[in-house]
Every structure is written in C-alpha cells, then in structure tokens.
C-alpha cells in the first residue's frame, strides 16, 4: 500500500502534463457563438442604411421565404474579402439582406459601388443594438433565417469561397 502510494505524485504530474499539452495543442477558439440558434429573430425595425435600398425589419424575415442575413460594415476589412462570395450566393437566387453596423449612408453607398451589391435591403444598426439582439459579436457574421423568421445557423467571420455551396444549400433547404 505504502509502496504504491509513493508513485501517486508522479502519476498525477504525468496526467497533468498530458492534459496541459493537449490544451496547448488545440488552438484557442475565441468565437462566441450565438445562443439564439433555433429561436425566432427578436422584433426590430431598422431604417435604411443607404438611399435607394429599403431598411430591414424582423417582419421582413418572417414573410415565408428563407433569407441570409449578413451583418457587415463598410469599415470592416474582412467584409471586403467576403463581398464576392455574397455576390455568388445572391446570384444563385438566395435573398440576401444586410445589417450595417455603426455606418454612414455615404460610406455604405461607396462600399456597395466598389465591391458590388448583393443586398435586397440593408438596415442601419447605429448602436449595434440589433447585432446584440441576435447574439452576434462582430463583423462579418451571417445568419440563415427560415421563412418563419427562425434562426437556423450562424457563420462567424467571412464566408469563404469553399463555404458558398454549403450556405446556398442551407438557405434553400430552409422552409
């Protein structure tokens, strides 16, 4: 009994070492996922973010058709990288709507003319209130919302070229 107990500290030390090196080998994931997946989009009404496009309200997302809701900003560099993918998704017939976070109308207009406009409507979220209501913590983020206004899926960070078919399938597969 005494003899076996002698090895206990060494065994504890080895187990601790294994656990810590496992923790170090995994990259730290700092993304905060929305806990609103599966819930309905909270009620909101946003004014148009730029002249020429309508604003966005939660009622527009419960009109029977699934949507891709993209949270972006003209001052967000990864959003520029995401623009061609959003264009491809919109060209495939997916209704893409935007929420522009902390943005100015002329800056949004400049962003759209420079990088293309995949959006049917863009709401201006000047104090990030709707972004927070959706459980989003940054730009860009995208939510797949079904025809009843239920949130099905969240993409944190830009949609990359290899993600495009999956996103299109997710929106088209939603009811």
């Amino acid at each position, binding site marked *: 009994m005494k003899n076996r107990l002698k090895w206990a500290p060494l065994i504890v030390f080895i187990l601790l070492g294994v656990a810590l090196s496992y923790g170090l080998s995994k990259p730290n994931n700092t993304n905060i996922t929305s806990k*609103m997946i599966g819930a309905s989009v909270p009620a909101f009404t946003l004014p148009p973010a730029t002249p020429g496009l309508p604003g966005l309200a939660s009622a527009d997302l419960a009109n029977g058709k699934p949507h891709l809701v993209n949270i972006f900003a003209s*001052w967000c560099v990864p959003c520029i990288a995401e623009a061609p993918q959003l264009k491809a998704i919109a060209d495939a017939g997916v209704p893409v709507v935007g929420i522009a976070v902390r943005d100015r109308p002329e800056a949004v207009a400049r962003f759209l003319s420079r990088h293309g406009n995949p959006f049917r409507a863009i709401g201006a979220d000047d104090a990030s209130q709707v972004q927070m209501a959706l459980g989003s*913590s940054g730009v860009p983020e995208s939510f797949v919302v079904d025809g009843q206004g239920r949130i099905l899926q969240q993409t944190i960070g830009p949609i990359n070229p290899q993600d495009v078919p999956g996103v299109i399938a997710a929106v088209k597969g939603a009811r």
Partner: protein
Amino acid sequence: MKRALFALVLIGAPVLADSDLPPAPLADTQLADPKQEAQAKALMEKIRCLVCQGQSIADSNAELAGDMRALVRERIAAGEKPDAIRAWLVRRYGSWVTYDPPLDRTTWLLWAAPVLFLVVGVIIASRSIRRRRR
C-alpha cells in the same frame, strides 16, 4: 521611407478596425439619477466585453463595449431590473458574457471544489495522525 510606411501600417490597422461613428450617447455619459447610475455601473462591471475578452464592458474601450454600456444604461433608465438585463445578454451569448456565472452543470465544480479539497485533506490528516499514534 520604408520605416515610415511600416509605422503607418502599424498605426493604420487599428484605425481601420473601428467605425467612424461617435460612441452611442449613453456609452460614456452617466445617468442623471445617481441610484440608477450605480445600478448600471455594478452591472457593467459584471458583463464581459465580447471584443476585449477578459475585460468588463465598464473597462473596455471597444466600440461594442460602448454600445453594450449604452444598452445597459438605456434599459436601467427605462426601469428594467439589472438581473433582467443580464438574463437578456446571457440568453444571447451564454453564461460566458457574465463574470458572475450561474450554478449549472458545467460550473458546479467551482463551488464544490473547496469542499471536496477539505474532505480529502481531512481524510489524509486523520490517516496520518492515526498512524503516528500507533
């Protein structure tokens, strides 16, 4: 020239990561009612910033933290209870967002660990005392 360009890049990157809109009105302005402001401040110290993870929204200079402070102050001013505001945020971001996490399946060990260690300590002590007596 190269050095100046490099310096520009260093300065430029953080600037590009922020919008040019001014902070929300209530982000950095105290509420007129000191009692409400105290409530808001207490809650802001318990809410974690989503950008500068590890700072409370009371301490963080991130724009989103400013907007979160504005949200807290607006709702307190409208008469909402701090617990209800915190529950609203936890519903969206999970217990992660609060520095005062609720007791649940993943956090019970935080409260139970001191008791468990005490029990283990008492067992070890009583055994060694008994051995010495013999």
